[in-house]
């Protein structure tokens, strides 16, 4: 129980029950189990190591690479993870204005335009030298996977926030 249990994607099927829970059916197990997915490395490796936890948060097992699941299970899992870890990608920064240490970001994201406020630089976190995670005052999170890929103007604006 204490060792890492990697699930064989070919022997696993994910469906949804009527209450909206994810159901895990494993080969050799008669009963499907209600599970919820969790990423082990949401920032540095979001697409691998997906833990499946029971209602009591016991870990059933870990799927290393969800892409190897059969297509329906894969889509279901990805949709659910997208919702749980809603993390828009900032694609362009229109402006960052600062007043009394509070920054107001006006940006374009992968989920549409957005204006939000950030309190202080502790909430702008460098995950790596180029990967930036931003948390606004309400706890919403946004990220820039690679600041070097932003346009020059956006990068210039970013300078004040780092």
């Amino acid at each position: 129980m204490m060792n890492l249990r990697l699930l064989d994607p070919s022997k696993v099927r994910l469906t949804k029950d009527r209450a909206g829970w994810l159901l895990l059916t494993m080969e050799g197990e008669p009963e499907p189990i209600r599970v919820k997915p969790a990423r082990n490395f949401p920032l540095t490796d979001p697409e691998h190591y997906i833990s499946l936890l029971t209602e009591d948060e016991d870990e059933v097992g870990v799927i290393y690479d969800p892409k190897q699941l059969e297509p329906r299970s894969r889509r279901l899992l990805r949709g659910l993870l997208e919702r749980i870890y809603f993390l828009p990608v900032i694609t362009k920064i229109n402006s960052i204005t600062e007043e009394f240490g509070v920054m107001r970001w006006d940006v374009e994201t992968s989920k549409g335009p957005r204006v939000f406020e950030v309190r202080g630089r502790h909430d702008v976190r460098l995950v790596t030298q180029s990967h930036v995670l931003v948390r606004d005052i309400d706890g919403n999170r946004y990220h820039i996977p690679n600041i070097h890929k932003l346009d020059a103007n956006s990068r210039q604006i970013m300078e004040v926030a780092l």
Partner: protein
Amino acid sequence: MSGNEGLIEEIPEEIASQIQVRLEAGERTRLALSTDITREGSFGEGWLVATDRRLFIVNANGEDAQDGKPSAPPLVEVPLSQVSQVEAHEFFGTGLLEIATDQGEREEIQFSRSLTEKFAEAVSVVEDLVKQVRPEGLKQGEGEEEKTRLKPQRKPRCPQCGRVLPPGAEHCPACLKKGKLLVRVLQYARPYWHLSLLSFVLTLLLTAIGLAPPALMKQLMDRSLSPPPGISIPMPERFAMLRTIVLALGGVYVLRAVLGAFHSRLMGWLGERIMFDVRTQVYEHLQKLSLSFYDRRHLGSIMSRVTNDTSVMNGFIVSGLQNLVINALTLVGIGVILVSMNPRLALLVMAPAPLLAVGTRVFARRIHVVYRRYWRQVSSLNAALASSIAGVRVVKGFAQEHRENRRFRSRSHDLLRVNMKSVAERTWYYPVMGLISSAGALLIWAVGGPQVLRGELTLGSFTAFTGYMWQFYAPIGALTEIHNVVQQVATAAERVFEVLDTEPEVADAPNAVDMPRIEGRVEFRNVTFRYETQDPGDYVLKDISFTAEPGELIGLVGHSGSGKTTLANLLLRFYDPTEGSVLIDGRDLRDVKLRSLREQIGVVLQEPFLFSGTVAENIAYGRPDATREEIIEAAKAANAHRFIIRFPDGYDTEVGEHGARLSGGEKQRISIARAILNNPRILILDEATSAVDTETEQLIQEALDRVMKGRTVFAIAHRLSTLKNANKLVVLDKGEIVEMGTHEELLAKPDGVYRRLVKIQTDLAQTVVIPE
């Protein structure tokens, strides 16, 4: 009787003669020490003199009994053959050397703590003398050695000049070889010598350019605006001249601005570069140094060496030295120009210079005093603030707000007073200095003016003169303060170099080999350990010997301060034993490479330390190359996975200063995961479960039990129940092993230390009875 030459001091004549008459033929003085406290207990001279046969205690001022009190006998004589005991005691204010005789009498001599050292030696000298006439020897003090042993305080004095060292300093600021230090500081510029040279040339150029404008003004006056009487220059030529000179002046200003900017840029680049080099070098050296270096110093002092002191050094290399050169050159250059133009006026210009120098000196000293007081007041205010705000619950709980207000107000008022004082000092400096300089100007006008009127001096020369005069006064103040600047830099440099010059005490021997994979047999062989700062008689561990077989669990038990953690530190080779040796698989730790040793030993401390970084980075601290899978495995084994996966960022969660707030138990489990991932062959658990609640303790204990399998484990624990399964318990008391055996064996000892400890803990546990 060798080795006590230092203990024979020169006895004053009147005392020497008193003693001399009592001596027999061939009797020689073996010891003569002066004390600084008389028998009456006031400051004054006294003597302890010992010969081959007898002891004298003399009181030089004994005759001068005051207020008619009977004076103590001026000279006491004790034959060595009657001495039964020599003892020294140290009290809070003084020390006492006591000599007991067979008749039960006691003679004593008192001394201040400044003399503790020599009287400590005197005891053994007298003892040796007594032994020669009394073969049966002396009675020992009540069997407690410590009582008689004096511990002279280590005096923080400079060994060269005898000055007391300033607080926090390890070197005498007066004896610093400043020149040598400064040369060493400048060596950091060597890798950039061509740029340094360029910047020096620019400095010279800038100084020279600075001298040009007054010379041009002279031409402007004499050849265009107002030629001296008797010289007629045609008007068009005068206009042409005007244009040329204005253009030239403009050129000079532009050149000065451009070169100046370039120069600053160059200096800035050089400075930052050099500071980076020094900082890196100091930090990398700090990482090499042994723990003992850190034991002796405050964290703040080490940190300020890396940041403050390096930047002071940098400031000197970059601007201090340049300013010094510019100022000196300007002063000399202008002096020469002035004298060559008009020696009499030049003397007048220089007349206020000494006043300026003295004034600056006086001002700097006074303002220094004020500033120092200012810093003291500020830190006292801060301390008061910190304590009262941290203790706000107590303040409010006892309803003492008004008192805190009063206290704060009074401190704050002190600060106000100091600040007012500094304002007062500062307001006077510039006006006074201005006045002195103006006095120079007045002199020039008063003496030079008539010269101009009489036609002895051209208006142009006069204008140039006044121009140079102002430039002449500016560097004087700066040069007067050069001494302080040099002092500051030398002190900072000394502190930095001290770090760089310290050799790590624990380092790889030249022929050290890699520790092969450890099997886990650990042997302590007659290990005694004392810190360098301790007296030779003291010890932290004394004659420790025991062996742990591979895979065994060894419990280290004892009161706090009994040496358990030191034992673990020796195993990690943070220190080397003073005597004896520590062996792993039969190899002395001093013969293997540190890195290869420590890589195979895991440590879990009571207060787990997490670095700022993510959970995953912290788990992989000892093995940065670990795969994600290995990290998860380690966390699972440490019972940590379950709470980590619940964080929104999972293993990417930031911990440390600005990161997630982890509970003590959570941190502990992460640090256990760190130890597991390292797969150590030997594991040290230092109070790993004592800082957490009972439920978490179970989770941690479970994790630990899993980790301990197949490894040699040294566990230190207060809660003895966790050590029940130990293969061997080592019970330490004051640095010595008092008992050793299994839990059952030790419990079976009727009067055992371990048995007593267990009893106390079970008694405590039984007081909490939950009624059914």
